[in-house]
């Protein structure tokens, strides 16, 4: 078990550097003229161009230039310096500011998915073919079909502006309440998938041998469902939700824009738009770490849920 975790952690280091290299390379390949991209449609003065070119080593081009800049970046990273973004702000400050709010948003989304999705999924699975089951199936189909880019502005308009239940935007230092609507919008997609996964899984496990045995032993239905069925049904759901945490954070680009939350999604979008390689790599690196850690947690949780799974 211990060796398993150490091995996984070592793999994570490799994966981390691998992804930063790939992302940095992609940013570098897609790079046109970052100084002009920063200035928008305004002419860039010669003095400013010279200043920025020197500061960010932009005169190093081609393959050699890529490795020069990448190793320069990694070197600084190992010294604990993430460098400056093209606008002159410390990337570490930007990360420190962007991550917490996105994390909050993603956790709210995930909680909504777990609480609503798993509960309804269990109910639907227990009463397969009933009204509740059919209604949720139809509803989730609808949610899965509507993209966030449509869902978010609609929710904002109807629940924020027309029927002012929630504040229309959350802002930079939002209360939990202000984050609720964007969180629900963000989590609705995972909610739908989690519900369907749980439903199928529960329905299947209800027909399994050990449930029949438990029934034969005269156990109460409540105990059968809560201890035997649910525990085994949660394995695919946990797998899905673990990976989904990372997806929720990277998928916040649209939701954060609509609800004006200055988190990772927005910064990522801006970084790509202004060809700000180090900023994008910085954001993505943390995202990679989140993915890796949540996957590790999921893998370890398997053993808790299913005694048959062991680690070497």
């Amino acid at each position, binding site marked *: 078990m211990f060796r398993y975790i150490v091995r996984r952690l070592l793999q994570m280091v490799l994966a981390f550097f691998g992804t930063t290299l790939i992302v940095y390379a992609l940013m570098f390949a897609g790079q046109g003229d970052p100084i002009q991209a920063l200035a928008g449609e305004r002419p860039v003065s010669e003095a400013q161009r010279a200043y920025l070119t020197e500061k960010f080593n932009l005169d190093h081009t081609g393959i050699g230039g890529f490795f020069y800049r990448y190793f320069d970046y990694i070197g600084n990273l190992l010294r604990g310096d993430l460098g400056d973004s093209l606008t002159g702000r410390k990337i570490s400050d930007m990360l420190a500011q962007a991550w*917490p709010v996105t994390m909050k948003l993603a956790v709210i989304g995930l909680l909504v998915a777990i609480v609503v999705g798993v509960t309804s999924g269990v109910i639907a699975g227990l009463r397969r073919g009933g009204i509740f089951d059919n209604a949720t199936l139809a509803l989730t189909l609808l949610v899965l079909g509507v993209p966030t880019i449509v869902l978010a502005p609609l929710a904002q308009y109807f629940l924020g502006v027309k029927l002012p239940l929630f504040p229309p935007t959350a802002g930079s230092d*939002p209360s939990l309440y202000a984050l609720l609507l964007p969180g629900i919008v963000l989590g609705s997609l995972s909610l739908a998938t989690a519900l369907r996964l749980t439903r199928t899984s529960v329905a299947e496990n209800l027909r399994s041998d050990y449930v029949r045995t438990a029934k034969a032993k005269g156990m109460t239905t409540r105990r059968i469902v809560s201890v035997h069925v649910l525990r085994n049904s949660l394995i695919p759901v946990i797998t899905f939700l673990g990976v989904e945490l990372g997806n929720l954070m990277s998928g916040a680009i649209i939701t954060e824009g609509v609800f004006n939350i200055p988190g990772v999604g927005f910064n990522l979008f801006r970084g790509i738009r202004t060809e700000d390689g180090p900023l994008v790599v910085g954001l993505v690196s943390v995202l990679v770490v989140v993915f890796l850690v949540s996957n590790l*947690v999921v893998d370890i949780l398997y053993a808790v849920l299913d005694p048959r799974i062991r680690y070497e």
Partner: protein
Amino acid sequence: MQVRRLAAWTALPLAATLGLAACGGGGDSGESDPNATVSVQIAEPQHLIPTNTNDSSGNQVLSALFTPLVDYDAQNKPYEVAAESVSSTDNTLWTIKLKDGYTFHNGEKVTSDSYINAWNYGAYAPNGQGNSYFFEKIAGYEDLQAKDPDGEGPQKAPEPKAKTLTGLKKVDDLTFTVTLAKPYSEFKTVLGYTAWYPLPAAAFSAPGVIKDGFEDAPIGNGPFKIKGSWQHDAKVEVERYDAYVGEKPKIGGAEFRIYQQLTAAYADVLSDNLDVDVTVPTENLSTAATDLGDRFQQSPASSFQFVAFPTFQDDFSKPEVRKAVSMAIDRDEITKSIFKDSQISARSFVSPVVAGYRDDSCGEACEFDPTKAKAAYEAAGGPKQIKITYNGDGGHKDWVDATCNQLKTNLGVDCVGAAEPKFSDLLTKVEDKQPVGLIRMGWLMDYPSMENYLGPLYTTNGSSNYYGYSNPEFDRLVQEGTVASSADEAVKKYQQAEDILAKDMPVIPLRFGQNVFAHSTKVKNVEVDLFQVVDMTKIEVVS
């Protein structure tokens, strides 16, 4: 089982820290007097150092923190604000007298040095200030620039010869002189721009070096001082500066709230969550009037939209071809159907907001006449295919496609709109002289003068003349205008120059912009000026 328990207990805290590290920090807005502060929509400013700020969001914040030497009246003529007088007898040697009593927010007195130091900092090339070019008319500017040693991408640039402009001389604490390299009649007009704000001694950690972190809490000489510091991507808060001697604002403070998307700001202003939304998004224009009533307003702006011909390409080298293309475009139709009249059809090469503007200076070439256009186009042998290249990130697709459709119908040519991801990609292609066809362009002025349109856009070495238009006669007239002895004289020369443009048609004027803004029910007297900046001294809170 033991091991598995252990695993669960290690896994859960991991999961919990992932989630909980994010929590904490509440949503307490902490405003002491909500009735007297207003919130204004901006985007994240790029910089808050005056000599490095040229985006409208940065200008908005700085306009609250700083008071300019001159401002512009209703006719867009300059009048003194922080300056007592700006005068010159020969348009070369300018004497600037400052009003007494102005102080910076740290109590420091505003003196001649505050201006001289700030401008020297801005002009010195290694500081990389975006507004550096504003100082190029001052004597000695050349010596502050570093010459590129090999002329081919900057190697390590050498130190410039000088660190300060020879043209700036202190006379006494409240008087200084500016010597220009060449006479320039409209120097006073230029002084209204952001780049010319003063900086306190506290801004510098050493002579010519701005202190780290000054940008996050700039100290100005204006009606408001910064409250706390610039909270990146979130907001900049300011409060009234009580020792301010100029026109006092009618509010206690303001919050410049940073929005990433225009639609979010619009949703907020609809529900009174935001007081001033400076830009109503295009997709909401059709409903804004019904949604907001008289809280939805328009005012003149300086923006100018046009398409330019790459005059170096054979296809578009003949003025007749360019004229015919222009005549085949029905501008009114597009401003109406696509922009819902939030922009105005353009038939001149400078914006209506500057002195010397004439209606229809473009003449026949900007009149919609499809029959004549087609005949002229065929007679001049225009290309069978036209491409309009634009940047895809600016919401230009709709009108470019509409323009193309008009050209298809009216000229019988094949026309396509080609999107480049970003404006910089478009520029790269133009600089490499690739066949991009017509190029979409836009211009916002820096100061209200015809010269600010004619110089950068159409002179041979103009900073934004990407399309290679060059006419020595035109250059000469603009040059004569800038050195003219009076503003009226200058305008005459500029108008003659504009007449040449009407003959050559290097670009097709399409539309002049308007500010389309909205405000909440809590505020009144909301005015948005030519630079898209809300006048923070006029705005009032409805009690």
